[in-house]
């Protein structure tokens, strides 16, 4: 009898309290229904023609490129920041962490406005930058990338930070006794062990950048072919061409799912 006990326990644990089931079902409905409505509204017969329109292809290309570059920049700057947050014992680390998390809770429009005050043509850094180099950040693809990075970077930093915290530092000590200096330890022991969290952080960052709207429209504007990303194109099309808006939305849903499904797998395996 005692042998069977664990199995009974496990089954009991998998059986939720009855009140939870309808609530969970309701939540699923709330999440899935809009997607069903989108599919139901889709102009299936014209779809191939619709997604070939310049408004769609321009926006898709711009979205993918800017989100990819923003993810690259986030990796470059975010992994070192995550390391500092996870490992260093600097004073005021909690303030630093709050600052790094701020864009997650800040309305993106506010982020875009703040970027404008910093890097706009009359901005704190933007004005001297233009005087010195002639380079103008806002209302260009670089503005889109800056807005995307600002909003999406924290997702990478927070994910990688918690990943680095989970790395067993004893392996780093073992590496040191084998003659590995700090850089070698980071490159060959710490980062490979944190790799799942880095991948997860990059994917989240990319997905967030892909959906970015508020900061982009505020800081980079809405110029088709130059700064009009997928979400902006959907918003514009909703006013003028509903079929195109639905087609754009479906493409966004498909790309997002393609990014998120493998990520979910990775998390479940870990």
């Amino acid at each position, binding site marked *: 009898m005692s042998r069977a006990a664990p199995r009974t326990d496990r089954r009991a644990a998998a059986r939720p309290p009855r009140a939870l089931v309808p609530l969970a079902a309701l939540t699923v409905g709330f999440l899935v229904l809009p997607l069903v409505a989108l599919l139901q509204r889709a102009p299936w017969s014209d779809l191939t023609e619709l997604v070939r329109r310049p408004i769609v292809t321009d926006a898709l290309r711009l979205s993918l490129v800017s989100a990819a570059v923003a993810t690259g920049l986030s990796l470059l700057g975010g992994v070192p920041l995550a390391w500092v947050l996870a490992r260093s014992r600097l004073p005021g680390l909690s303030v630093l962490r709050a600052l790094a998390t701020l864009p997650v809770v800040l309305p993106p429009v506010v982020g875009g406005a703040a970027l404008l005050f910093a890097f706009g043509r009359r901005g704190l850094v933007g004005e001297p930058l233009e005087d010195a180099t002639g380079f103008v950040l806002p209302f260009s693809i670089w503005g889109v990338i800056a807005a995307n990075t600002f909003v999406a970077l924290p997702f990478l930093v927070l994910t990688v930070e918690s990943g680095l915290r989970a790395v067993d530092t004893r392996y780093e000590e073992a*590496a*040191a*006794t*084998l*003659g590995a*200096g700090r850089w070698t330890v980071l490159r060959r022991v710490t980062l490979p062990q944190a790799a799942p969290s880095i991948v997860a952080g990059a994917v989240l960052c990319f997905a967030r950048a892909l959906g970015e709207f508020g900061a982009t429209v505020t800081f980079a504007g809405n110029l088709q072919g130059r700064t009009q990303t997928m979400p902006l194109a959907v918003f514009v099309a909703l006013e003028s061409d509903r079929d195109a808006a639905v087609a754009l939305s479906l493409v966004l849903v498909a790309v997002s799912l393609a990014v998120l499904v493998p990520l979910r797998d990775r998390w479940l395996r870990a």
Partner: protein
Amino acid sequence: MLRAEVDVRLPDLHLRLDLRVDDGEVVALLGPNGAGKTTTLRAIAGLRPLDGGRVELDGRVLDEPASRTFVPPEQRPVGVVFQDHLLFPHLSALDNVAFGLRARGLRRRAARAAAHAWLERMGLAGVAGARPRTLSGGEAQRVALARALAVEPRLLLLDEPLAALDAGTRVRVRSDLRRHLADFPGGRLLVTHDPLDAIVLADRLVILEGGRVTQTGTPAEVTARPASRYVAQLVGVNVLFGTASGRHTVRLDTGGELTLADALPAAEVAIALRPQAIALHTHRPDGSPRNAWPAVVADVEADRDRVRVTLEGPVQATAEVTPAAMAQLDLVPGARVWASAKAVDLVAYPR
């Protein structure tokens, strides 16, 4: 040759000990949990800087707070085999062994060739490509040893190298380890809480208790003359501490008095008494034994063919009797008995 004067202050332990390991020597640091064994190892490896004292290897000072000298672990010629082995989980067995050589600037191909030779030497050529989690405990241990030895350190530190293994493989791995350690020319310092590992593997034992060395000597010396209750329990011998009250008599710290056949070697002595040399009786024994004392049974522990009886009273000791004697004497906790030991069975040595 390692010479270490370790002084490390931990929140609940002040570790202070002198340690010396000659080339070719295997020294075991043996002690209960929390005695500071692993901290000592970490200090020598450079993973825990000293608070005082110094660590010197082959005449080179590696750590000396007084002169602000500290050589970081990656620059010390010290190899470490960690508890749980700590093989890098994302690298194959071969790349684990090659890691140190690569870190020291060897090209990938040369490092792998050298690592392969090490694995072959350890009888592990077949698992070169395997990830650590697929290795058996014994294999992982040999990979860890090969990884530490591949960079040709001058000193090898082993932290509980057999603790991660189950009892079945332990015996074989222990003798393997002994063989592989024999090939290493430098000093070897082994940390363990298992007396059997220490006795089988080491030339010399250093007993560490509460951050201090309580005894040092060859395994034979330490087991013959335990200097503390901890060592006595480890080797299964009773040790009684007392002060001379005559040429042949000792007044024990716990109150009893014992008579020995030989003259006492010092005023303050420890007396070793084997559990088998204690006889138990229902009444005060008359006749030959010169040492008899009343005792209360505190605990009875029955094995297959012998029974260990813990006795309280003026002489605190463990006796070993046969199951038949146990039944005859009705030995249960709380029972009052008489114990006796022959004078010739008591061995005294200076405390």
